[in-house]
């Protein structure tokens, strides 16, 4: 136990923890919304995120982000944000169409949809991990070698963004960390208000509460489910963009660990609950880094999952514990 280091660096550590926790929270949103509406854990959501990171990476590469500065660089980054959101949204919608809708139509048990989700997750991850061979089949591997060449190893945009850091009251504050926290919280507020106030949001909540009655009241369940996947995908795209700004590196299997953590965050906050996802993500991020600081970084994942078990022991439905349908407007 290194208490001296821990207390001396508490503000800096907490800030880093909040930044990573904010990314967890944005991914957790996709798990929690789909669960709220379908009572289905969409395990392929981590891959939705992973494709977003690659969309961001490829956009920056294609637009020459490495040599850009100032306004040009900001424009490229904004384009890459849109690309990441679009890519994640498309993957989420394809998932819904291919892996879930046929099962829901046939009234298949939830367990079958869960297996389908895990299968889809592997297919998507390996497709990215074998993209050099996929490109080879269509004869594009030479033209696209910059993009598909490093299929199974790290792909990096290190050095593209040289973000300023400030020293405030003795701690180093990274502008990227602040940006990540601020954007994540802002996006969560937007989604939360959207689900609470818009007509579509009401439809989502109605379907979550009682799909049959909702459809009798004129809510189109297929469209509602689609919208749920779409919103989850868009948020995963934002998470992917912020993740790439912060970590700068991605790989075909990057979704696995982050997906597990984001799912943990969703359960921690109360699965099906939007505000729970935010709280769960931030708590998890901070707990991990505090645990790493106190016990050693090798304890990071242990701390995360022990925290989950302890909280579920005392609050079996998570910290906030309400489902999407019951959330009050």
């Amino acid at each position, binding site marked *: 136990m290194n208490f001296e280091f821990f207390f001396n660096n508490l503000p800096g550590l907490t800030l880093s923890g909040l930044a*990573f926790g904010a990314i967890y929270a944005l991914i957790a949103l996709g798990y929690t919304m789909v669960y709220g509406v379908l009572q289905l854990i969409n395990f392929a959501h981590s891959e939705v995120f992973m494709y977003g990171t690659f969309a961001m990476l490829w956009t920056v590469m294609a637009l020459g982000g490495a040599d850009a500065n100032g306004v040009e660089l900001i424009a490229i980054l904004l384009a890459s944000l849109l690309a990441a959101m679009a890519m994640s949204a498309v993957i989420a919608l394809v998932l819904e169409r291919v892996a879930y809708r046929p099962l829901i139509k046939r009234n298949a048990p939830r367990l079958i949809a869960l297996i389908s989700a895990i299968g889809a997750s592997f297919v998507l991850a390996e497709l990215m991990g074998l993209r050099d061979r996929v490109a080879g089949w269509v004869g594009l591997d030479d033209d696209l070698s910059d993009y598909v060449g490093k299929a199974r190893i790290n792909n990096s945009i290190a050095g593209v963004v040289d973000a300023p850091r400030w020293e405030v009251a003795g701690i180093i504050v990274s502008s990227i960390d602040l940006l990540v926290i601020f954007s994540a919280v802002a996006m969560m507020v937007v989604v939360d208000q959207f689900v609470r106030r818009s007509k579509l949001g009401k439809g989502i909540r109605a379907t979550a509460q009682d799909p049959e009655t909702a459809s009798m009241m004129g809510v189109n369940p297929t469209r509602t489910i689609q919208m749920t996947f779409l919103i989850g995908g868009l948020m995963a795209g934002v998470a992917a963009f912020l993740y790439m700004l912060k970590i700068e590196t991605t790989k075909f299997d990057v979704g696995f660990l982050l997906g597990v953590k984001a799912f943990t965050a969703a359960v921690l906050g109360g699965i099906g609950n939007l505000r729970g996802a935010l709280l769960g993500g931030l708590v998890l991020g901070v707990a991990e880094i505090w645990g790493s600081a106190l016990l050693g970084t*090798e304890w990071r994942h242990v701390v995360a999952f022990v925290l989950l078990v302890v909280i579920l022991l005392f609050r079996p439905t998570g910290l906030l514990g309400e489902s999407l349908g019951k959330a009050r407007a």
Partner: protein
Amino acid sequence: MIRSSKSWQAVAVAAVAGLVLTACGTTEDGGDEGGSGGGGGEAACDLKLAFFGPETGPAAGLGKPIIQGAELAVSQYNEDADCEVELVNYDSQGSPDEAPALATEIAGDESIIGVVGPAFSGESAAAGPIFAEAGVPTVSPSATNPALSENGWDTFHRALGNDATQGPAAAAYIKDTLQAKSTYVIDDASEYGAGLAGIVEEDLGADAVAGSDTIQVGDTDFAATVSKVVDSEADAVFFGGYYAEATILIGQLRQGGFEGTFVVADGVKDPAYLDAGDAAEGTIITCPCIPDTDPAVADFASAYEEEFGEAPGTYAAEAYDAATIFLDGIGDGIGDREAMLEHVNGYDEAGITKQLSFDETGEPADVKVYAYKVEGGEIVSEGEIG
């Protein structure tokens, strides 16, 4: 567990028996058709060498030059040999979990009389007992964990110095050349990384170590570790691990305000490390691998470049040497594992990287460690350090 392992043995025995029978058949056929006849001094036919290591997987970059170095040795041998030797790749993805099944598969194929590998320390530890039991001689061109040679496996050899020489050489470099007063030691909890970091930490001595931390392979956020390093005000950081994590770690260290020297070992000596960009500049890499600019490997380097269109990577020359040991034996007419093992144990010839001979534990008699530095976006040699 006991039952299942017995049934596996039965399957393995059956498989071996089948292969031996087929192998005999083919040899006879070959003799009849070719009319060359069998004989003591002549090279044996239908023999294979295996490469054991990562062809794919997160550390595939480190496997590629090893495969190509061994391929070059085999293709040069085949140019004027009566019977061609085949090099078969067994892709472990660098994972200790994959290793035992692959090793059993190799042990079952009697035509494989030597293994170039296993490439990494973790997989070597997992596969070693299986090779030892089956009597398959192995020469690793890259596994550096010192404990590997202490298991009493007669079949284990390596064509490079281990971390018991690399670690102290790195520690001496940090103390004497870099003149670092305090060093922060990080490892990745792998067989290789943790072992090496432990040796460096011990060799630096408690006064010169500012602290230590352990990350996990596959992690991408090292904020806590970075805070610890910056807080400790260390002049240098030593990281024992592979390039995948090192690339991200150095980026975050630099962003976190660390300004000292980053020192790493052979697991990071891969072009992919240069992805870290400016953050990687000035990194010191120790490696028991010979630089491709060394005059001793000039012929090899030009042949390699001609064949593969790139300069030889880390451990390509060591892999060439490892394969050459086996190929010399095959050229002398050795056709089974027992004789090959005897040949490897008694080998004493000048290889391209060093004088190749092994002590009874399989360690090379001649050991060299080199330092490299990242300069101007390239990994350049700093010469021999011990």
